[in-house]
């Protein structure tokens, strides 16, 4: 049958007013249902008629999923439906977690940040253009990766963590949340579960058809940030082809605790290089006890790219990741 794009097929729309109703509807419709947050990822899929759910559960009216609140321990709780603009501009986020404010503020465009949500940015699907074009690849349930052949156009694909699929995670906020050691709270009809941000993202080795732990019926409801590291330095950088409306080629987020001129502790996370955000734990260990300078950064960068393997067109990502990790130590402020 012929293929046609750019025309959203009909679906049944549900607009629950609470989380309980939302998760009930999600369970009811199972894999024939679709959760709609800001719609930036969703409508691309719908327009291309590749994802064709029967029921769409629109979270736009669930007020309890919106807002930013200071928790008892001094941390922050952010509703998954809070807009990226609100996160980028919120005073508590800006003062306690500028890393997250920066990451959210670099997403796409002002219009997309107004409409896009933190939850949506976290759980969005990969932008591998073979997969997004509807090709029957592993991630789409097929038995091939079109992006990993010798002639594939894979400049934007991964240099590590590949397992059959070589797509990368496109989120800007994900590496920031992992660097901040955030927790993700997930609701379903069987109750609430909590994951560390690092564990929330999964690679194709665990499940090739998902980017996160969320299964049908699971709803990311809020993101919990621990009390800020006092006096910690941070760094976020997103390298992209143009300055607006673009996903990262590689991005880096770091939190660096420096005392007496020496790094006590660091969390370094790189995105755009693997199917899920990569925590550079070996580099983190290597920088402890060293000055946050060019030399330490260089060493951290070299360690972070160990084992990286380029595809046909993305060797540059190895150098870019190394340099960004270097900057995330050297230039953290």
């Amino acid at each position, binding site marked *: *049958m012929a293929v*046609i794009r750019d025309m959203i097929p009909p679906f049944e729309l549900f607009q629950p007013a609470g989380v309980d109703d939302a998760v009930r509807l999600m369970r009811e419709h199972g894999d024939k249902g679709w959760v709609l947050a800001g719609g930036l990822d969703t409508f691309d899929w719908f327009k291309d008629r590749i994802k064709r759910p029967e029921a769409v559960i629109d979270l736009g009216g669930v007020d309890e999923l919106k807002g930013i609140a200071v928790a008892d321990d001094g941390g922050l709780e952010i509703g998954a439906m809070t807009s990226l603009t609100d996160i980028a501009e919120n005073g508590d986020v800006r003062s306690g977690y500028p890393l997250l404010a920066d990451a959210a503020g670099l997403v796409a465009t002002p219009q997309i940040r107004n409409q896009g949500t933190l939850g949506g940015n976290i759980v969005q699907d990969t932008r591998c253009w073979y997969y997004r074009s509807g090709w029957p690849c592993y991630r789409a349930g097929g038995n091939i990766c*079109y992006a990993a052949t010798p002639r594939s156009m894979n400049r934007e694909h991964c240099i590590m963590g590949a397992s059959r699929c070589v797509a990368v995670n496109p989120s800007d906020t994900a590496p920031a949340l992992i660097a901040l050691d955030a927790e993700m709270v997930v609701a379903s009809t069987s109750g609430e579960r909590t994951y560390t941000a690092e564990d929330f993202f999964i690679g194709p080795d665990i499940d090739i058809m998902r980017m996160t732990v969320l299964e049908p019926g699971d709803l990311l409801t809020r993101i919990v940030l621990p009390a800020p590291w006092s006096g910690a330095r941070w760094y976020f950088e997103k390298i992209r082809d143009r300055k607006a409306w673009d*996903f990262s080629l590689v991005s880096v987020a770091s939190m660096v605790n420096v005392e007496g001129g020496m790094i006590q502790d660091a969390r370094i996370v790189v995105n755009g290089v693997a199917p899920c955000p990569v925590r550079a734990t070996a580099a983190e260990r290597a920088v402890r006890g060293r000055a946050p300078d060019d030399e330490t950064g260089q060493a951290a960068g070299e360690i972070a790219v160990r084992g990286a393997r380029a595809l046909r067109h993305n060797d540059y990502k190895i*150098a870019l990741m190394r340099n960004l990790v270097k900057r995330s130590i050297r230039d953290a402020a």
Partner: protein
Amino acid sequence: MAENVIGTDISPPDLRAKITGRARYAEDFRADGMVFAKLLLSPMPHARVLNVDTSAAERMEGVLGILRADELPVQSEGTREGALTDEPKYEGEPILAVAAVDETTAAAAVEAIRVDLEPLPFVLDPLESLREGGPDAHVGGNMAGRGELGSLKWPASVFEEAGADRLPMGEAPAEWAIGDIEAGFAEADVVVEESIVHQSVTHHPMEPRSCMAYWQNGKLFLHGSTQSTERTRGSVARMAGVEPDDVVFIGEYCGGGFGSKISGSPIMAVPAVLSRKIGRPVMLRITRYEENYIGRARAGFQGWAKIGFRADGRMTALDLYLVQDSGPYGASDFFTAGTVATASYQPENMRFRGVAILTNTPPRSAQRAPGGAQIVAMLEPLVDKAARELDIDRLEIRKLNAPDSDGWLGPQQGPFTSAYVREALDLGGELFGWEEKKQLSGQRNGTKVTGVGMGLSPFTAGSTGRDGLLVIRPDGKLYVHQGIGNLGTHSIADTARPAADVLDLSWDQVVIVWGDTSKHLPFSTVQAGSQTTHAHTRANHAAATAMVGLLQELAARELGGSPSSYRVADGRVFRAGNRAAGMSFAEAARVAMEMGGKFSGGEVPEDLNDATKAAVAGLAGEGLIAAARDNYERAGAVYTWVATFAQVELDVETGEVEIIDLASTTDCGTVMHPRSLAAQTNGGVFQGIGMAKGQRWVFDPKWGIPFTKRFYTARPPGILDVPLSPRFAAVDKADPYTPVGAKGIGEPPVGAGEAAYVCAVADAMGGQCLCRTPLTADMILAELEGRPRPYGLLDTHV
């Protein structure tokens, strides 16, 4: 006295509607009983339709009809493109169209159609097709030439000789020379040589080419989005298989064309023919995805250049070889490219060789300086390279080689009407602060290195012989009938200004009539080749001069005295020295209607185009009517030059480039409208920078399928990618061969911006030119880090 409006800023008459959203574009129109059409696009880059089963679609409720390729008056054959085809030659080429009561139904019907295709060999890279045994874009050929399909293969030895790092150069079907190329090189003190790739890139205007059509009493009414208006009618008529008189084309606004919507788009045939077939108005809304396929693209080049310079900086020899990616139906960019190069450098000796090869990628058309932008961006970095070797300032070497008004153009070495190129370069050097800025070259600040560069870009900028048509109606206003379209450049208003000035009439008394061929529009230029400003300031000047003559004669007949004793100003015709002795324009219009004959369109000059004569006939009796052909002298090629200067910072750890400063200047003759001119120039410069910096058109080479079908994957530049305050100045020196002095500006800025960017990046890299566009961060970083290049030297569509 009315103030002279030429050279002042005005608000064009369409501005308010555009800003408030009241402007109606093609897809905003509705007609009684209107239905919608959707297209079925080819899923393969080259295939033959074996069988189409539409039975399931036809059974669906709300489906009204299906249109196949063989029902169209203009059918795909050889290098002629039809709107639909049974042998698709690129992925996304429309095969058929379905009409239904709504788009949802039409889309579902398309999905229900079964198309059996036989895959055919396809090719994306012209060099691959030039190899013996290599695939051809068409069955039986790989080359377009004079409407015929041709075939060209080069022996394996050509490729072996070139190796991987040099363009293979076999037999070239197109070749011309000036002087003796070998003698030129013998005379040279420095010779530079490079193989260079310039990408193909889609136009992606904001408004896709949606169109709506209906028929009334045998007449076709078509709403579309085009750059031209009067000249669109003929092409729509051909597509619908009717006479131009039976077509009413309506297109008041155009959301960008850049050369992709010069007159009719082939796809207009679909609603035109489908609406006749089903007896209902048909709207075909083209989506962004479809626009990527059918919306045209610039032809890419794989090129080679060898350039010789004497120690004094003069170019003694330019040897140029271009392999053009022509898409499935051909393009002529490569030929223009050779000509444009002469307008930059006036080489003492030159050889041009070129070959244009068909590929199974979406169709090409003119894109803002077709051939010109490419060649400027390809050659300017080489000029810099030679300047460095010769230790000559980069601005100086351009001034040394640029033409003046005694310069020459192209293989025929014909004259220019005027060329104030050195003035533009000097002005640009001052505006940018070249002397100070070049000291910053190579300066390092942290991880960032500064580079400065410039690009000089010529392009054709005028034509002659079009008609002007003016009416003074009984309301006393001057109606300027414009056959040109409103493509978003303000030329629709700016070219009317000479009429106001000649009649010494205040601008608020001028009404512009445009955008609908039933409104009696005169013969015009197609809006391409930056002809409009030049052609239609002349035509309206001619018509206004004729109008002055008619007013004088009419006043003399009515009030006595000789015509020459009357003056025209401020909406009156009156006796010299006595304003009271005369009549208003409103009175003149009424008198003209009474007198009839030549005063109100009853007689017209013989040399008018038939389209203008018909327009006058349609208006006859409605006021005082003046129509005239532009018979002003033309003494050479009309060219405009733009020089752009750029300062960039290159981050050596990421390959990212930030543009810190931009300044552009132009010799485009008399400035008609300063604000609009600056906007046109800066917009073109940004478009060129986009092509150089990151806009892309990527195909999977194995499957022949593009991925950059959306704005976010095609990545045209955004406002944050350029400085917020680019600077601009114009030489503002009249072209002596036109009464108004104005030349066009649409096209040359593109190459100037693109070249300034690639030259500035090369400067930041210590003079190293990567010789390809787009020049993305990954390529720059790989080079800086000494890592493997992400693409082969001659790879295209990356």
